[in-house]
C-alpha cells in the first residue's frame, strides 16, 4: 500500500460520515445546555441574591474565556478528579457547560422581555412562583427565544470542532486524519467546511426568517 493515497470518493465519504459525531456531540450539548441554561436563566432572574450572583458569575466566566480553554480544563480536570482521560466525555461536559452559560444569558433576556405586568397580574391572581413561570412567563418568553436559540445552535455546532484538538474524532479531526494520509489539504478541508456549511446554513436561514417574522408580528 502506498504511503500517500489520493483523495478519492472513499475519503470523501469517510469525512461526510464523521459528521454523525459532530451532530451527536451538538445534540447532547444542546439538550444538556437546554436544561442547564433554563436553570441558569431562572437563577439569573431570581429575586434571591445568591442564585443571581452565582448565575451571573457562571455566565461571566464562560463568556469571558475561550471555549478551547474550557475544553482543556475539563479534559485535564477530569483526570485530577480520578476519571480516566476520555475526550468524548470531556467534550460533552465542556460543551454542555458552555451551552448552559450562553443559553442562560439568551433566555434571561427573553424572560426579562416579557412585560412585568404579566408577572404582576399572575401574582395578583394568586399564582405562586412555579405556576407563574410555567403558565405565564415562560410560554411568552419561549416565543421570543426561538430565533436566538437556533442562532446559538449554529455557534454550538461550530464549537464542537474544537473537540478535535483534545482528540475526539468528529468531523474536523477526521479531516485532519484523512489529510495526514492524502496530503491534499485543499480538498480535505474544503470538504470538511462544506459539510459544516450544509449543517449550519439552513439553521442560520431559519433563525433569520423567524427573527424577521417575529419582528413583523410585534411591530404592530
Amino acid at each position, binding site marked *: 500500500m502506498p504511503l500517500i493515497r489520493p483523495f478519492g470518493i472513499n475519503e470523501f465519504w469517510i469525512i461526510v460520515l464523521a459528521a454523525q459525531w459532530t451532530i451527536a456531540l451538538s445534540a447532547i450539548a444542546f439538550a444538556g445546555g437546554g436544561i442547564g441554561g433554563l436553570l441558569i436563566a431562572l437563577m439569573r432572574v431570581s429575586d434571591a441574591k445568591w442564585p443571581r450572583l452565582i448565575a451571573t458569575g457562571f455566565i461571566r466566566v464562560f463568556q469571558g*474565556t*475561550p*471555549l478551547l480553554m474550557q475544553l482543556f480544563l475539563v479534559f485535564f480536570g477530569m483526570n485530577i478528579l480520578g476519571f480516566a482521560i476520555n475526550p468524548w466525555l470531556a467534550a460533552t461536559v465542556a460543551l454542555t457547560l458552555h451551552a448552559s452559560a450562553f443559553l442562560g444569558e439568551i433566555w434571561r433576556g427573553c424572560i426579562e422581555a416579557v412585560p412585568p405586568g404579566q408577572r404582576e397580574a399572575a401574582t395578583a391572581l394568586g399564582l405562586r412562583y412555579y405556576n407563574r413561570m410555567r403558565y405565564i412567563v415562560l410560554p411568552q418568553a419561549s416565543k421570543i427565544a426561538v430565533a436566538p436559540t437556533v442562532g446559538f445552535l449554529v455557534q454550538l455546532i461550530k464549537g464542537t470542532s474544537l473537540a478535535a484538538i483534545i482528540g475526539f474524532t468528529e468531523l*474536523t479531526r477526521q479531516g485532519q486524519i484523512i489529510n495526514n494520509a492524502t496530503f491534499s*489539504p485543499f480538498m480535505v478541508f474544503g470538504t470538511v*467546511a462544506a459539510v*459544516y*456549511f450544509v449543517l449550519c446554513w439552513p439553521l442560520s436561514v431559519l433563525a433569520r426568517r423567524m427573527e424577521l417574522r417575529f419582528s413583523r408580528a410585534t411591530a404592530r
Partner: protein
Amino acid sequence: MYNFNFEPVFAGFDQLLLGAWLTIQLSVAAMIIGLIVSIACAAGKTSGIAPLRWVIDAYIEIIRNTPFLVQIFFIFFGLPSLGIFLTPNSAALVALVVNFGAYGTEIIRAGIESIQKGQIEAGTALGLSKLQIFRYIIMKPALRTVYPSLTSQFIYLMLTSSVVSAISADDLAAAGNNLQSQTFASFEVYIVITIMYLVMSVGFSTIFSAIEKAAFKYPLSR
C-alpha cells in the same frame, strides 16, 4: 487528593506573558484590518450593485457557517497548494481578519441601514460630496449605533484567537501548550491561562466603555 503545584507555572510566567502580548497584538491588528474589510464590504453590500452584493453575501455566509478551526486549517494547510505560503503567525492574522470581516460586515450594515434617508438627502442638499456623505453622515453615526455589538464581537475575536494555537502560532494558548508539555502541570497551566484570558476580556471591555464615554459625547437622537 491531588496536590496542586503552581510553582512551575509561575517559573514560566514570562513565556505566558509573551504569549498574551502576541494574543493582544493579533486581536487588535485583526480588529483594525477586519474593520476596514467590514466597512468596505458593508459599503459594497449597500451600494446596489447586484453581483458585488452576491459575492459579499457568499463570503459572509461561508465564514459564518463554518468553524474558525476549519477556516484556519484551510488557510494554513490549503493555501500552500495554490502557491501561497504563510508563517503560522501570519496565517493566524489572515484567518482572524477574514473571520472578523464577515461578522463585522453584518454589524456595520445594520448600522448603515439605521441611518434615515432624510439625513443623506440633507447632506446632498448641503452640497456634500459622496465620500463626505459616506464618511460624516453615514459612517460616523452608524459606527456609534453599532459600537456595543462591535466591541463584544472584538472580545469574541480575542477569545476565538486561542484556536490559532492549533497551527502553532505563538499566542497565549500555544505558550500554555508549550509550558504544560515542559512541566506536566497541565491543569494548573490551563487554570492560569484561562484566568489571563478572563482578565484580558474584562480589561478590554473596561477600555471600550471608557472610549465610548470619551468619544461619543453628543446625545443620540432617535
